[in-house]
């Protein structure tokens, strides 16, 4: 079986680390990773718990294909109740940490309680212990990883850590592993900080951590999958060469690039911060921002960006630690740090992104919150005296200062760390927060792409593009082309995307495989790895079950159908320019149909029949 069948339970209050068998009946119903950890979480915590209470739990979890030879099989997730939203939080990361956890023999680590003092968890194969982290508290993610590897004299230890943002409970703090891969969204790092847990350091050397149900079939299935990825233009060429950042010009041309806190829908500076611009040699030093691409464990796509900044850029002139190559901007980060607040300097974006990685905070929510603050400033609701400096849209200096202040938890950075919902409410204009359920939008405007608007409104973890990526049909024509402004068929398509995504997120695979793979490519890999019947029909049922379980948790936590909405700006203010000019979100037309295809009541509650069918 591709599960290790071992769960590590860590009580941070007592300091105990105990082993228990994985609930294999649940694994049959929820597969692994996102689905399985959600089942554990909802079974063990009160949905109404304060996310920062010791009674909240934090789960690191792998999937059955994590740490296997399946292409992209290196993913892990962190599941908890999120402080930004009050909803289920599930953040997914790549890098090498997840596979290492699996090699050490663990499917899952459940943290409960809160430690009375800073600690880190050290896992060396079957041995796990909490270690004093007083000397690490106050350090960045990058410093922490370096210090742990040095102290343990093992460069192959993999580290997932919080930076100062997580310690300071920035509501969108993430957990960063391998220096620049992150379980980035929804504030999972802030929950980790609330538990006084600085890091998880893991070294796994076991060759018997798991077995395959059918090793030969698994080798055949994974090899076939790799050939599909290599032959596909997107996963074989487009993503490795340009990364996700190639979308900047696409979405801008299409008229769906939210700009200046969604006041505009196209950005005049898009080209300057695009994937193509990352390849262009700078006039200052004759070098391109992009150094190379990078891959996570087992990945044959390699979409990651490794960038080096212009050393003469004002933000890093006296800071050699930022003058080397490190994790560059992906599309969402480039949008949030750039278009969302009108900044068109690629080097500034790269610097801010470095800081997000270094101190562990989500560039999407951070950048979008800066955009909201800039609008408040331009409206006169925030002053230079309150902020400490001028804060107009497009200010590179303000972006640099706010990234530094938020990383350190100083000055106005403390307010930026609240996220845009709380910031806008504090200054009297809650409607200017571009969020759903308290979480900031990513890089697609729900007026320009109607299906994405519905995806945002219904996402279980607040506004998110990775829960049902309707950009695929609405922009890219994958698997079929749907007109951006059409509404017909979108609710059913979104449900299919959401359910399939839940399966992929529970398997250990990367969602980006689905630009080339269909379920028929994924199913044989899961079937060969895991004992049991994993037909396509059953997998989609698992995905639907996971989606409904998350929904039930949110309803029990106090959210309702009324939270499945978009800010008034998207519902009432027409897009100003471009091919989507005049458009507003048609969410009210789509939501009732979405509830119907989900088998939910008109109020958005799963019916008794749906609950019975799914066994939730």
């Amino acid at each position: 079986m591709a599960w290790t069948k071992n769960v590590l339970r860590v009580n941070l209050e007592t300091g105990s680390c105990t082993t228990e068998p994985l609930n294999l009946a649940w694994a049959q119903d929820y597969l692994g990773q996102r689905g399985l950890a959600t089942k554990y979480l909802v079974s063990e915590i009160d949905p109404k718990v304060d996310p920062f209470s010791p009674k909240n739990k934090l789960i690191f979890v792998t999937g059955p294909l994590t740490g296997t030879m399946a292409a992209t099989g290196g993913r892990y997730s962190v599941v908890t109740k999120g402080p930004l939203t009050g909803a289920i939080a599930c953040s997914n990361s790549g890098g090498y940490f997840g596979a290492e956890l699996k090699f050490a023999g663990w499917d899952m680590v459940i943290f409960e309680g809160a430690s009375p003092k800073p600690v880190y968890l050290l896992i060396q194969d079957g041995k796990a212990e909490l270690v004093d982290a007083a000397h690490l508290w106050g350090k960045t993610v990058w410093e922490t990883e370096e210090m742990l590897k040095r102290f343990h004299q093992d460069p192959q230890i993999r580290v997932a850590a919080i930076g100062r943002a997580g310690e300071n409970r920035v509501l969108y703090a993430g957990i960063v592993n391998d220096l620049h891969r992150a379980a980035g969204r929804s504030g999972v790092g802030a929950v980790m900080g609330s538990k006084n847990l600085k890091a998880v350091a893991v070294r796994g050397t076991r060759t018997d951590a798991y077995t395959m149900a059918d090793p030969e079939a698994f080798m055949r299935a994974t090899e076939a999958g790799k050939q599909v990825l290599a032959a596909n233009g997107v996963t074989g060429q487009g993503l490795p060469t340009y990364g996700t950042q190639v979308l900047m010009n696409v979405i801008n041309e299409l008229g769906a690039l939210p700009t200046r806190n969604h006041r505009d829908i196209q950005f005049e500076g898009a080209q300057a911060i695009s994937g193509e611009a990352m390849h262009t040699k700078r006039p200052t030093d004759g070098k391109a921002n992009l150094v190379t691409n990078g891959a996570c464990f087992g990945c044959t796509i390699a979409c990651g960006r490794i960038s080096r900044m212009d050393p003469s850029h004002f933000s890093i002139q006296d800071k050699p630690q930022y003058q080397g190559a490190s994790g560059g901007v992906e599309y969402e980060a480039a949008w949030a740090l750039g278009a969302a607040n009108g900044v068109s300097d690629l080097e500034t974006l790269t610097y801010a992104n470095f800081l997000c990685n270094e101190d562990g905070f989500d560039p999407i929510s951070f950048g979008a919150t800066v955009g909201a603050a800039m609008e408040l400033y331009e409206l006169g609701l925030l002053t230079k005296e309150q902020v400490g400096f001028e804060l107009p849209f497009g200010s590179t200096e303000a972006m640099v200062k706010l990234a530094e202040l938020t990383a350190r938890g100083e000055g106005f950075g403390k307010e930026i760390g609240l996220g845009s919902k709380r910031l806008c409410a504090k200054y009297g204009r809650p409607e200017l927060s571009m969020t759903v359920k308290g979480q900031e939008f990513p890089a697609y405007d729900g007026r320009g792409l109607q299906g994405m608007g519905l995806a945002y409104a219904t996402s279980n973890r607040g506004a998110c593009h990775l829960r049902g990526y309707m950009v695929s049909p609405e922009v890219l024509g994958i698997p079929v082309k749907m007109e951006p402004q059409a509404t017909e068929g979108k609710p059913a398509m979104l449900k299919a995307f959401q359910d399939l995504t839940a399966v992929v997120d529970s398997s250990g695979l990367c969602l980006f495989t689905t630009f080339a793979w269909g379920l028929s490519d994924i199913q044989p890999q899961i079937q060969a790895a895991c004992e049991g019947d994993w037909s396509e029909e059953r997998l989609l049922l698992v995905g639907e079950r996971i989606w409904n379980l998350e929904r039930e948790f949110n309803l029990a936590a106090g959210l309702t159908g009324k939270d499945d909405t978009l800010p008034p700006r998207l519902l009432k203010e027409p897009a100003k320019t471009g091919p989507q000019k005049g458009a507003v979100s048609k969410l009210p037309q789509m939501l009732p149909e979405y509830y119907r295809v989900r088998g939910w009541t008109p109020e958005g509650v799963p019916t008794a029949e749906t609950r019975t069918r799914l066994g939730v």
Partner: protein
Amino acid sequence: MRITLKLFASLATHLPVEARVQHRVELELEPGTTVQEVIRRQGIPEAQCAMVLVDGVWVGPTERSGRVLVEGEALAIWPPVAGG
């Protein structure tokens, strides 16, 4: 008539060198020229034309031979790309 041709990502190599940073070039065309004819005239491999937009509106593979360009329009083309 004049139109703007925009070629992105790896297709930029089909633009004049001086136009590759901005990813665009102005073209003088005979009235009645279709999207398909521009693609062929510029030597852009048709298999690489995964996404074709005219003024931001999708033109599918089967529509390209019938889509006549008009003065002032912008034709934008990408190879297979995606993001997230």
